[in-house]
Structure formats: C-alpha cells, structure tokens
C-alpha cells in the first residue's frame, strides 16, 4: 500500500491547467512571434519589427494608444474618488440607503451593449433626451458622440454610470472592516469630520483602494464593448482605443498587425499595473 502519497494530488490541477495552457498561455506566448510576421492565418512571413514600426507611424493607431491611457486613467481615477465618497455617504445611516445601494449597483449587471445603445440614443445631438432636457433650461447641448473632441469623454461618462456601483460596493465592504474605535478615539481628540475622513478613513480603507484602482485600471485599459456599441471608435478615429484598433485590424485581415496591437496592450498593462501593484504592496509593509 502506498500510504505516503499526498491526499492532494496534482492531477486535480490537470484539467484546468490543460485548458488554461492551450487556450490562454500558448496563444499569449505565440502572439510575440506572430506579431513579428505578416500573417494570413495559414502562412507566416517574418518581417521583424515592421508591424510595430507601422503601428507607431500611423497617427490614428497612436491616437488609439493615447485614448486607451486617457480612458483608463479617467475611469479608474473617477471610480476611486467617487466610489469612496458614495460609499461613505451610503454607510452614514441615510434614509433609504439600502435601496440606494441596490439602485447604484444594478447597472453593473446589465448588458454593456444594451447600455451603450441606450445611451447613444439618449445622447443623440438634436432629438436625444439629454439635449432636449438641456434645451428646456436654455442650454444648447453639444453633439456628445458626434463631436470628435467630446466622443471619448461621453463614453467615459457612460462607463462611470455603469461601473461606479462595483467600486462603491468594494468600498462599502472596506469601510465595514474599519473598527469604530478609531473614529471614537479621533472624536475624543477633537478631530473634525474632514480630518477624520483624511486621517482615519482614507488610510484604513487602503486595501479596498488597491482593489478598486487595479480592477478599474485593467478594465479600462481593456475596454472594448462599450466603445464599440456607442461609436465604433468614431467619429473618425477620435474614440478608438487599443482594443477597438485590434478588432478593426483583425476585421481587415491584418492579423500580424492586430496581434502586435495585442502585444502593445499587454506591455501597456504590464508597464502600468505591475509598478503600481509593487508600490501599493511596499506601502502596505510600511504601515
């Protein structure tokens, strides 16, 4: 009898490992090679860094890269700040706060494409509900999605509308784990509400902040469906992001270039998220 065998055998990991390796890891590693080729899915021709050179030569592709960063920073920054403020408000014993939490959270679960289509109708430049309402109080509303200078920011707004509930809920969970003793002590020391917020709440809710920032940053950098549903990257290329560029190049049959876009997105996420995580973790040790 082989009683020495571990009761936690590695074959338990096997099914998941096979699926993950074949459908996720292998394509990811292969993407580095394919991004260096001219590729039609059947034959590859090695062309070195030509795809990357083309990527950084085309103004609209660079704009996609810049838009990705703007989009991710704006959405994650706003979700962090607004999420914390909303969470503080919704744990302060307001009348109807349970209902409020429910209402704010529901859009998180709804189809992103459905939300995108709905808001592109609401944001119609002349007949849309938003501009009709603005006109009623004497403001001439802009073309939210038709003005190239504005389209990306309008989508950012809708992303916030849809995603703020998740940030708020994570913060509510974080706030719940702060012991009331700290507030008690601060009150005895004569701290004002503002002081308590910045000196007690903000430092102690830190794990939640790390989560919200990381999650929303990665989500923002990879964002595709909302942008696709609302503008398809237009007008022109003004609201294109890396993920929509990758799709467009794929659709056009530029598989090598599309894959190079993927690698750039991969590197971008690595460059932004890894140092951030390291920094967050170091600060945590200091506490």
């Amino acid at each position, binding site marked *: 009898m082989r009683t020495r065998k571990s009761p936690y055998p590695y074959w338990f990991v096997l099914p998941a490992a096979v699926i993950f390796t074949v459908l996720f890891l292998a394509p990811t590693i292969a993407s580095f090679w394919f991004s260096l080729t001219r590729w039609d899915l059947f034959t590859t021709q090695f062309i070195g860094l030509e795809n990357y050179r083309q990527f950084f030569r085309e103004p609209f592709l660079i704009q996609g890269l810049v838009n990705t960063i703007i989009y991710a920073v704006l959405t994650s920054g706003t979700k962090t700040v607004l999420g914390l403020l909303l969470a503080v408000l919704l744990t302060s014993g307001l009348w109807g706060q349970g209902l409020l939490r429910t209402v704010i959270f529901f859009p998180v679960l709804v189809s992103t494409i459905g939300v995108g289509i709905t808001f592109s*109708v609401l944001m119609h430049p002349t007949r849309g509900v938003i501009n009709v309402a603005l006109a009623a109080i004497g403001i001439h509303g802009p073309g939210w999605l038709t003005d190239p200078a504005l389209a990306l920011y309008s989508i950012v707004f809708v992303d916030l509308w849809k995603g703020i509930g998740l940030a708020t809920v994570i913060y509510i969970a974080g706030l719940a784990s702060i012991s009331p003793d700290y507030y008690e002590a601060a009150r005895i020391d004569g701290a004002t509400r503002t002081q308590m917020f910045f000196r007690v709440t903000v430092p102690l809710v830190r794990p939640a902040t790390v989560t919200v920032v990381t999650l929303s940053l990665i989500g923002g950098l990879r964002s595709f469906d909302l942008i696709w549903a609302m503008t398809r990257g237009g007008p022109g290329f003004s609201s294109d992001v890396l993920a929509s560029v990758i799709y467009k190049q794929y659709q056009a049959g530029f598989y090598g270039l599309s894959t190079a876009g993927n690698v750039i997105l991969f590197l971008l996420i690595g460059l932004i998220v890894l140092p951030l995580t390291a920094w967050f973790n170091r600060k945590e040790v200091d506490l």
Partner: protein
Amino acid sequence: MSRRQLYTGIAALAACGVIFVLPFIFIFITAAKTKQDAATLRFSWPVEWQLWQNFVEVVQTRNYMLLLAYFNSTIITVAAVTLLVLFGAMVGYVLQRRPSRWNTVIYGCVLAGLMIPPAIVPTIWVLQLLGLFKTLSGMVLIQVAYGLGFTVLLFRSFIATIPRDLDEAAIIDGAKPFQIFFRVILPLLKPVTVTVIVVQSIAIFNDFTNPLYYLPGRENVTVQLTLYNFQGQFQTQFNLLFMNILLVTIPPLIVFIFFNRQIVAGMTAGAVKG
C-alpha cells in the same frame, strides 16, 4: 435617524432616480411604443401601448433568431459555469492545501489570467488547429480559460476557512483523494459555489467581445450579438431594438433579484487579495 439624514437620503434617492433609474424607464417605454412613436426618441408615455406586439415581432425576427441566441447563450453559460466550478474548486483546493514550489507557478498563472489581455488572433489560430473555432464547445472552453483566475482565487480563500482536521478524519477513515474532495470538501463549498455560479453566469451571459471573435456565424449567435445584429437592421425601428435590449436585460434582472447579496459578497470577496 436625524432629520438631516432623512433629507439627505431623500435628496440622494431623487438624484439616483434621475441618473440611474430613468434610463431603464426609457428602455421600457420605448420598447412599448409604435415604430413612429419610438422614432422621435422622446421621453414620453407611449401614445399606443404595443408591448406584446413588439415582443412577438422581435422574437419572430430573422426566423426566430432571438430564441436560437437564448438557446446558445444558455448552453454556453451552463456548460462553462459547471466546468469552472468543478475545475476551479479542484485547483483552489490543491493550491491552498499543498504548499510547494508549484504553488508559485499556479498562483502566477492565476494572476496572469486576471491581468493579461487574451491574444485574440493567435487564440483563433489555436482553436482552428483543434477544430473548435466557430463551435459552442470551443466557446465554452474559452470562457473557462478566461474565468479560471477569478474562480480559483475565490475558492482558494474560502477553502482556507475549512479546517484541515476534516481532511485528516477522512484520510483516517480510508478515503481516497477524490473521495475526500467530492464527498467532504465540495459539499462544504456551497456558499462560495453559489457566488461563483451567479457572478460567472452573469459575466458569461453578458459577454459580447469573446463570442464576437470566437463564435462568428449566424447559427452561432448569442444574445448580446443579437443587439449588434439588430442595430443595422432596425436603424429606424427603435421600438424593436429596445424591446430586444429589454429581453436581454431580464435574465440578469431575475438573477439580481434572487441573489443580490451573494453577487455583492462574491464581487468584493473576489476582489480582495487572498
């Protein structure tokens, strides 16, 4: 409750009502309008209620495409979530119970799965090699591969709360590894399993991007893609488009009503570092 809390509460509810509830009311009333009425895009009560008529018309469109989409989406969601629970729990179990150098590798893969954007075209290439491109089973496996990171994290942190004494008692009773897992551990994972089921089924049901890439073709349509298909066709038929949005929103709505707490618990637990 102070008077101030009451007034702030009412003000906040009113603001949230305008910001978060009005768009949903807009979806509903537009879905109930006639074609001409809906085309004005106005936020007004329907001149003539056509909720049922629009419903029938959307369901019948393109030879009952929406029903096919519901069928496909349900198959993908149920199959992928079943595999995710089973395989994810097994990985989480070994990861938590058997510390070794392999753990670093496995944990690294979990984090990679959470962060790295999937390399799309190479994945299509792999799927083609395996003969799984444009098949429901291929789509199921993709959803499993992409959902594993989150699932394993959740299971791992939950299994840490189950005492090892239980495993040892089972070992003394002569249970084999798979008996310990399936008879002792898996039944105890019920709360976190419900969370995984709810969160992942909503994510997979609502997924648009992956079916767009990996499951092209009319016979493979999923519910989110019906919205995309309908957009061109009903450029002026906003009543039908919004009826379609309404129909696609109903399943998550039902899940939400039944599992509200579990979803929130799962989202936050999965988000907090293990």
